[in-house]
């Protein structure tokens, strides 16, 4: 079964450092998403991406965050200057172009980011 792959599974970084979280969506999917879950809290929408541009972003997704699809397969989330409160599980997801609300995205297994 096709999978969304995320690397690394766990990243520890110093406060103020830049991190890049990587995702390989399912190959025929065209919509990409990042969500995050702070420990013990709900899964929160960060950003959606289609046709090489951001289509929607939440208030969490401020200027510290950026997304990119540098080639035909990877989808990255960059945090420029990490803060302690960025520590969370970050999930990448993808969906086919015609998918609509009835169908779930396919999520990756997540990257646990720990900012120290």
């Amino acid at each position, binding site marked *: 079964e096709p999978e*969304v792959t*995320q690397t690394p*599974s766990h990243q520890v970084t110093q406060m103020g450092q830049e991190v890049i979280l990587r995702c390989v969506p399912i190959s025929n999917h065209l*919509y990409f*998403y990042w*969500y995050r879950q702070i420990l013990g*809290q*709900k*899964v*929160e*929408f960060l950003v*959606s991406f*289609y046709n090489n541009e951001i*289509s*929607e972003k939440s208030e969490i997704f401020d200027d510290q965050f950026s997304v990119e699809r540098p080639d035909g397969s990877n989808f990255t989330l960059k945090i420029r200057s990490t803060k302690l409160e960025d520590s969370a599980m970050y*999930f990448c*997801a993808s969906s086919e172009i015609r*998918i*609509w*609300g*009835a*169908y*779930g*995205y*396919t*999520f*990756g*297994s*997540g990257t646990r980011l720990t900012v120290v």
Partner: protein
Amino acid sequence: DQQVKQNSPSLSVQEGRISILNCDYTNSMFDYFLWYKKYPAEGPTFLISISSIKDKNEDGRFTVFLNKSAKHLSLHIVPSQPGDSAVYFCAASAVTSSGTYKYIFGTGTRLKVLA
């Protein structure tokens, strides 16, 4: 802004019995509701969904009920199995201004099925 709420953080059920997980929402504009299941160290996995125009959807052991007037939905698992032990997230689907969908998740309910 808790548009989707799961008020029970945990639930324990005996194997073979029914598990009922509950979810409440506040926004009447949500058009689909979904349940996701999450095992430790894995991403959420889509389980079942229901359109806002229906009141029940069934898939094998899983049934989702929607009560629009009460803004409440529930997931029934019958019979419950030990492999069902996971965190279950309720999510509501909202169309964004760009025509994509984003999900608004509840905080999850940890289900433990006891053998």
